């Protein structure tokens, strides 16, 4: 003997009375616009009876529809009153129900379409909202780097520079001239593939060394021999020798 649950499985589940009615219309292959109301009503009531037998809760909407069907059925059995005139078309008791069914069916038909779209769409994977968003430090737009930034970096360096303590025996320290410094900077930058400003300074350096080097860089930039780039505010300054120097000679 089949268990109750297996029987339940065989009983189609309907979303509501209209859903059930549409199912019956389709099963009987009758036109929706001319429903054989007696047949459909009997089948509808049979379905409700099965639901009750299975101890399934029959929603009140199903019962209301049963009453409506029975009412239509009885009205159709009544003898038609004599027509008073040609225009006085007698109203079909089914009209309202059929209109509701037609309207409902439009949306009911979309369920399969939406289901298909849902399945197709489920095969697309998007990046999840919890994908990490990189922390951006807004880069300085190209062309907005000014000597002011260089100056700031210089200030930073100056603050880091150690003042050479006075030695016990005073030996005159050779002060580099700007010209010599310029040649040295040009030589080092040319020999490199991009050099950090700091790399031009040999530790321990003095404020004077930093200033001299900075001036040398500014002069070389003015002459169009050097290009300076900075990664960001307070970032490292990198220097490049410009490949094409118009007059060709080295800074000697």
């Amino acid at each position, binding site marked *: 003997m089949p268990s109750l649950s297996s029987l339940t499985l065989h009983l189609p589940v309907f979303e509501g009375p209209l859903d059930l009615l549409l199912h019956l219309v389709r099963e009987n292959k009758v036109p929706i616009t001319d429903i054989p109301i007696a047949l459909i009503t009997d089948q509808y009531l049979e379905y409700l009876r099965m639901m009750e037998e299975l101890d399934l809760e029959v929603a009140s909407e199903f019962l209301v529809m049963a009453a409506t069907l029975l009412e239509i059925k009885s009205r159709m059995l009544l003898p038609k009153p004599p027509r008073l005139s040609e225009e006085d078309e007698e109203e079909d008791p089914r009209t309202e129900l059929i209109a509701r069914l037609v309207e409902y069916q*439009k949306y009911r038909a979309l369920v399969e379409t939406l289901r298909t779209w849902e399945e197709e769409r489920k095969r697309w994977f998007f990046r999840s909202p919890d994908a990490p968003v990189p922390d951006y430090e807004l880069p300085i737009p190209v062309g907005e780097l000014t000597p002011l930034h260089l100056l700031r970096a210089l200030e930073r360096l100056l603050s880091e520079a150690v003042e050479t303590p006075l030695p016990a025996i005073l030996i005159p320290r050779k002060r580099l001239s700007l010209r010599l410094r310029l040649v040295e900077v040009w030589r080092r930058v040319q020999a490199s593939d991009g050099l950090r400003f700091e790399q031009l300074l040999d530790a321990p350096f003095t404020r004077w060394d930093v200033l001299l080097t900075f001036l040398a860089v500014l002069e070389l930039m003015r002459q169009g021999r050097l290009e300076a780039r900075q990664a960001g505010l307070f970032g490292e300054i990198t220097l490049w020798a410009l490949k094409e120097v118009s007059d060709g000679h080295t800074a000697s």
Partner: protein
Amino acid sequence: MDIQRLSRALECLLFVATEPITMKTLVEVLREEEHCLRFALQALEERLSASGLQLVEVAGGYQLCTRPEFAEVIARYLQPQPTKLSRAALETVAIIAYRQPITLPEVEAIRGVQSDGVVRTLLQRGLIQEVGRKQAAGRPVLYGTTPQFLHYFGLNSLEELPELEELNPAEGNQPEKSGQPTLQI
């Protein structure tokens, strides 16, 4: 910016975005003319044809997503719980999509059943939202679909829904969605 470079910039934006980006936003962010962006989108789509990703127009914007053929592999990695909508939910959201703005009693009149539970589910899943109040007794809430609704069904706009009259009521046949993720640029 030349078209190729622009298409790479577009790709970056679409990569970091977690929602569709509208053309308006693209114009603002990339500071390029719309017709240039359309060319760049086309170039991007061509370049992506060799990749695992695709460009889709969805919910009124552009977005990158994976190609459907790799769905199984991705599912193996992400192990998502597939939570499909119930038939009742699909039916209800279809009615709301076509008749919006619509009240709960109006939905129930069409469906012939009580629908407050299913409407609540749709609200929770973000597929519908309150869009106002009807100027009627009791000022009932009016509902409409959300961009999330479009996204859920892979639609770009409500216009992509089939005309209700087009449906053959006898057959309940399936209308074709205008676009598989093809781009109309």
